[in-house]
């Protein structure tokens, strides 16, 4: 088989807790992103979003990539790698430059200096910056400036959002990809990737909270005024729901998983009170019954708690009032019936399931909340390609920051 050169091919690789997913996108001349292949494999070596069994994880990645290659009919050489885990965290930082000679026009070099200052961070040892995202410039206290060059002022400031993680734990997935002779073009935080996939520009403008309810971890990102304002990870996910059910209903994990998918609900409905489910016996044991009310109560408590932790975090940062586009859910957890109403109740905002927008190709296959991260990685990649041509953009800066990771791995 003749494999085509992968010139404008962008591959997003998500190493998830239940599935490993590779999405192959092709950037066409007019800037349209076309998804041409998807590869998936059940993940065995990942817990809470991080690799715990290197060998199994590598094997699964290989299979997912091979499936994607088959479908897209090309050879994958490099990927945009999604990373997550409890160690990833985000915060906002501000850089400042005093313009010494009184009021004068701000120049490009002033901007570069303020960017440099904003990047001067006090990260604990062993941590690396994953993303450094420009938010807004502030000129003499006037906030919300996007293009400060040629403005006049005495003081130039820049707000950035910094996403960082532990170097040693970020290296593991990179190492896994490397061991398969795959280059890692960029390491992307999954929470940012999925928000890129599901938010429209208008939603980013109005302010939205994206929650990716994964199996191992729950990531969230807040957009307002078109920029990332806040990100975070909680190492609690669908696995925890399953585990709670297995524990509370005294059934095996596999049975708990099936119960969660077939009969789960994020809310307690009054009509389930006292209702039971009959489970077919597996090994000749007498039939078991499971109390549906308990099932729903266990699930709703766990999901509500997860949302509450996010809500508390946002309340601390004061962002809850800026989310005019509401809450957008994605990830497998967004399929749980009633999850939207639960989110509406906890956050006091309208909630919806994220649709993967502005992407063509295998639309029917891909318009599922589970693929948000994979598609988001491809979108991130397309921005990256677009910007490296100009070589001044965001992604190249991140690449520089990340240089350390790539060299050591």
């Amino acid at each position: 088989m003749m494999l085509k050169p992968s010139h404008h091919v962008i591959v997003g690789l998500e190493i998830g807790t239940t599935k490993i997913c590779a999405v192959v996108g092709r950037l066409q001349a007019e800037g349209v992103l076309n998804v041409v292949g998807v590869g998936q494999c059940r993940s065995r070596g990942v817990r809470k979003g991080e690799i715990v069994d290197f060998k199994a994880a590598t094997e699964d990645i290989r299979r997912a990539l091979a499936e994607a290659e088959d479908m897209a009919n090309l050879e994958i050489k490099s990927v945009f790698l999604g990373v997550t885990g409890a160690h990833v965290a985000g915060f906002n930082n501000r850089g400042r430059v005093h313009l010494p000679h009184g009021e004068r026009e701000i120049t490009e070099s002033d901007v570069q200096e303020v960017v440099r200052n904003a990047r001067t961070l006090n990260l604990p040892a062993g941590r690396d910056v994953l993303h450094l995202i420009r938010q807004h410039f502030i000129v003499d206290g006037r906030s919300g400036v996007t293009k400060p060059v040629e403005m006049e002022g005495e003081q130039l400031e820049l707000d950035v959002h910094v996403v960082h993680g532990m170097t040693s734990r970020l290296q593991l997935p990179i190492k896994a990809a490397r061991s398969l002779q795959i280059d890692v073009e960029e390491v992307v935080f999954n929470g940012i990737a999925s928000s890129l996939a599901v938010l429209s520009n208008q939603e980013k403008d109005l302010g939205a909270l994206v929650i990716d309810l994964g199996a191992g971890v729950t990531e969230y990102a807040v957009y307002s005024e078109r920029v990332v304002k806040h990100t975070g990870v909680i190492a609690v996910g669908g696995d925890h729901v399953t585990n709670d059910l297995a524990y509370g209903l005294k059934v095996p994990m596999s049975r708990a998983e099936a119960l969660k998918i077939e009969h789960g609900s994020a809310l307690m409905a009054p009509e389930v009170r006292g209702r039971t489910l009959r489970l077919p016996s597996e090994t000749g044991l007498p039939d078991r019954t499971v109390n549906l009310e308990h099932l729903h109560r266990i699930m709703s408590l766990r999901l509500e708690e997860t949302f509450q932790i996010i809500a508390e975090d946002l309340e601390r940062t004061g962002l809850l009032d800026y989310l005019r586009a509401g809450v957008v859910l994605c990830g497998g957890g967004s399929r749980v019936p009633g999850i939207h109403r639960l989110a509406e109740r906890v956050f006091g905002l309208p909630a919806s399931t994220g649709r993967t927008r502005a992407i063509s190709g295998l639309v029917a296959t891909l318009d599922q909340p589970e693929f948000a991260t994979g598609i988001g990685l491809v979108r991130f990649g397309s921005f990256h390609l677009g910007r490296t041509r100009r070589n001044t953009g965001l992604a190249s800066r991140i690449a520089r920051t990340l240089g350390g990771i790539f060299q050591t791995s």
Partner: protein
Amino acid sequence: MSREVFSNQPDSGPNGTRVQIVGVGGAGLHAVEHLAQSGFAGVPLAAVHTDARLLAQSSLGTNILLGSRLTRGLKAGDPDVGRAIAEGETEQLAELCSDVDLLLLVVGLGGSTGSGVAPVLARVAREAGVLVLAVATLPFDLEGRRRGEQAQIALRELRTASDAVILLPNQQVVRLLEEGAGLTEALEKVNELLADGLRGLCRLVTQAGLIKVDFSDLCEVVRGRHSESCLAAAEAAGEDRVKAVVERLLNSPFLDHGNALSEAESVLVSIAGGPGLSLKEIQQLMDQVNRLCEQAQVVMGADVDPGLGDRLVVTLVGTHRRQGEPAGSEPTEADVEPGLPGAEFPVDGRAGAEPTSGGAARARHFVPPAPQLAPEEKVKLMEQRGLRPKRGKRAGTQFMLPLEVVSKERFEQSEPTRYRGEDLDTPTFIRRGVRLN
């Protein structure tokens, strides 16, 4: 149940357990005030609040006004503000805990001051080596969801910060009231129940007793962060006083018509009566209690107090532990402090009864005041306890063990997810204490 009878136990006097009752916030203040007005002596009462006006009306011995500069004597308005105020004035709170062995913290959760200040006070007290027993009320349902949520958050913090929490959900009181009862009446009722319970608790820990139940027994029953304790006290006089007392106890909303008892794992019963208290009466009473809580380990104490005259006073503390929690497990440091590796549950967790076993590292956490006994008496007491039939006898471990495995299985290879001192890998319904019947 063989328990040593200390017939010549010296009066607790100055060497006994020094108890301080502190009401925090509006609800706590009112409850303690109610206690004071109903004629309660022997235990110092204090109030901590941010509201100057309420404190000015208070008749208690010690009143501490917090955050007067910040709130100008008004209420805190928000639990976070309350917490911040308390954190800023910890010296004042620490003063309250000097020369005290046991702090009984009375608080109504859900509001601003109580929810914010109480966990801080509990922490400060514990840092000073004081044992903290919190008696907390949860708001009525009618007070709205937000208050309920604030209360739940504060409750979690309080559970982490104090040695034990006894919970009185106000909503339960509603059932007791008549249809047309006013809010004042409801609150009055809550205060009354709280005061009764507090009085009983104080009696329990301060008085000598013929069949002694003391502070360490109480600790044993209520400790454990995931446990839910209920508290009820009742008194009666006259002919059928045993029957009347039991009836009143069962009527207590906090016992849920005795349902709470049938599910309880350990129950502490303290009986006090006048000189006329007869063995038969105690037996009748204990028969009833034992019948109610067949599953439970029952610790019983009795005392004769000439001041009681004809009256019979019974205080009941019951604890229902969650399924995941092995009986007698003690919240270890790791359980309380975030960032430490997962809590190992001791199979035989009776460390609390042995003050020497903890060592300095544990000192901050759980220090029952050493009983003031001569060394030989101490040894005897220890032996006595060691011989006592343990709750482990009920083969609790047999069903605990596999469950614990289920709970960790999926996550054993990864680091535990910790948030505000809680291990999020443990099912939420267990941590929140939701009962699945």
